[in-house]
């Protein structure tokens, strides 16, 4: 039997926790403001992407508010961590709705995005994802994306490697558990074999994997002339280090997930990715005035060079701004619910054109962007454009 004192203690703790739970629920005063919410991984293995998106979007929000807002409407930006996980993303989305979100700028990753499809459909709000590239991530009519989708990206990379670089025999390593990675893999493989390329080593790993030696041995023993890695930068950095120990010196290629890989490779390891080529819509070394002004602001605020995720998010906010202008919203309209705003904003999305950091963007009715892509290469420890 618990003693009386113990019971009292437990009761007190329970009450304290309950009260703490309620304190966080007070709603902020957002009159005269439009609330844009976002979710993305701020912790976990995809955390660099979420952090970049949050920062890039914040810069755009600050720019717009400092210039007096849109027709007098100020923007408020709230962001929640989803750890790139579907279940966590659902909770984060609910929390954003509770906090008055009217427009959704998320998710950062595809898996989390697909998990939100039903909620986004039900809420009927305008949804712009900066970087969820899986086809299904924008299956709702109120969803749009800034980045390229996996199928187009995988196809484009197959064509670039086969036609421009002239490689014919592929070694592939991808993450079977991840929808982004397997989506790219399928699209790449389909186009690659159509073109006439062969696959010398076709390998994959599971999400929890820490040991890649068996896969790398298979790759080392094949006659492949390049290694294609349609995966995220964190895992890729571990695989590249292990590949070096196995003396694999194949040219490395990948997709936009490899952006930021230098953050994971310190000291001598950074040299291992010299010459790595990946597909990206944005490069901080782009000399255009728009990009350089963004890079300067980003560096001043965060002491870091922005990556494509930051640029995608920056563009996402300006796309939302263009839609608000096109729909002719006024300060009065900030009182509308997320759904009512969605009804006004979604139809104008296909009519806008935004000259963003990642190119001139227009949208098709399916929500896909039309814009040009760049191929980047790592040279002397920097990401530079490649023809």
């Amino acid at each position: 039997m618990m003693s009386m004192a113990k019971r009292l203690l437990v009761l007190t703790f329970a009450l304290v926790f309950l009260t703490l739970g309620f304190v966080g629920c007070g709603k902020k005063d957002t009159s005269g403001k439009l609330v844009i919410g976002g979710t993305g991984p701020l912790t976990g293995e995809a955390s660099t992407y979420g952090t970049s998106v949050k920062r890039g979007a914040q810069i755009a929000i600050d720019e717009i508010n400092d210039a007096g807002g849109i027709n007098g409407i100020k923007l408020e930006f709230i962001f929640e961590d989803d750890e790139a996980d579907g279940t966590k993303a659902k909770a984060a989305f609910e929390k954003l709705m509770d906090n008055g979100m009217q427009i959704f700028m998320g998710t950062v990753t595809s898996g989390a995005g697909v998990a939100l499809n039903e909620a986004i459909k039900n809420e009927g709000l305008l949804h712009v994802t900066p970087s969820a590239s899986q086809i299904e991530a924008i299956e709702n009519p109120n969803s749009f994306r800034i980045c390229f989708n996996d199928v187009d990206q995988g196809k484009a990379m197959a064509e670039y490697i086969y036609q421009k670089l002239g490689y014919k025999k592929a070694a592939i390593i991808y993450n079977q558990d991840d929808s982004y990675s397997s989506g790219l893999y399928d699209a790449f493989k389909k186009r690659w074999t159509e073109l006439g390329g062969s696959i010398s080593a076709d390998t994959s790993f599971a999400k929890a994997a820490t040991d890649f030696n068996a896969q790398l041995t298979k790759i080392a023993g094949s006659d492949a002339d390049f290694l294609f890695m349609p995966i995220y930068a964190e895992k890729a950095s571990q695989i590249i280090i292990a590949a070096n120990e196995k003396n694999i010196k194949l040219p490395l290629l990948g997709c936009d997930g490899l952006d930021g890989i230098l953050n994971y490779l310190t000291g001598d390891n950074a040299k291992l990715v010299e010459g790595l080529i990946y597909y990206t819509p944005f490069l901080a070394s782009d000399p255009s005035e728009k990009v350089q002004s963004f890079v300067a602001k980003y560096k001043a605020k965060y002491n870091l060079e922005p990556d494509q995720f930051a640029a995608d998010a920056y563009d996402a906010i300006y796309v939302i701004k263009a839609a608000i202008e096109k729909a002719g919203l006024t300060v009065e309209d900030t009182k509308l619910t997320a759904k009512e705003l969605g009804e006004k904003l979604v139809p104008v999305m296909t009519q806008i054109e935004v000259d963003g950091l990642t190119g001139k963007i227009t949208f098709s009715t399916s929500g896909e962007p039309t814009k040009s892509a760049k191929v980047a290469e790592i040279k002397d420890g920097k990401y530079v454009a490649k023809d």
Partner: protein
Amino acid sequence: MQQFIMTLIDGINLGSVYALVALGYTMVYGIAKMLNFAHGDIIMVGAYTIVVFITRLSISVPLAMILCVAFCALLGFVVEKLAYKPLRHATPLSVLITAIGVSYLLQNLALLIFGTNRQFIVRFIDVGNFNLFGVSVSGISVIIWVTTIVIMIGLYTFIKKTKLGRAMLAVSEDKGAAQLMGINVNRTISITFVIGSALAGVASILYSAKYLNVDPYTGSLFGIKAFAAAVFGGIGSIPGAMIGGLLIGLIEALTASYLPFNLNAASDGFAFVILIIMLVLKPTGLLGKKNTEKV
């Protein structure tokens, strides 16, 4: 042929890491008759101490290694004292559930302190590569093979030859009788845990040196594989843990390389399928002893 030898070496490398973890598992089970599911997580904690001591505080490597083993042993002592000792006379099921609880507690503590981001470890044991039959083998892997064999032999002789070791054996065979013979059963079980956790400390050093990164879930995956290895070899048997670890490592590497279809990720599952088949044929594992229950 070269490819085949390389795959075998991959398997042995991976298998010796499993074996190293399985040794601690099996020793604690063999003597205290409980499955310490938190064993893998103690390795994870050990790897974090390496992160703190070497990457963050830049303490000299040998000292950091000693501190890591000492910390793991201390952690094992504390966990045993707080979580397992009060349950000495409880049913095995309650102890098992408690061990799972401890495992989650350690994972969540690591999450709380270090966050979900993977922590990277600087290369602190750098011994280059060895050449074996024309195949290059990383030096750290060779160190792991040697350490695993040394620990296996050491543990075996310790239990068979020393007074404390024989006391452990006596406790494992019959707690009541051991008590009557003047053995302090409680203390013997506590010491078993401390030794098991110190072994986890050694495993964590070698794990960190080989993989150079750790996250809060590192221990659970290796823990489960090592548990399978221990069962494969016959849980409670020290040479069995070694053989079981190596076999699981080899099966994983061979299925990943030679399955005719792309199912690398499923090679994890393949090892377990073989484990199930083996347990159907020989329920005590490869080297397990058959215990006849006396009524």
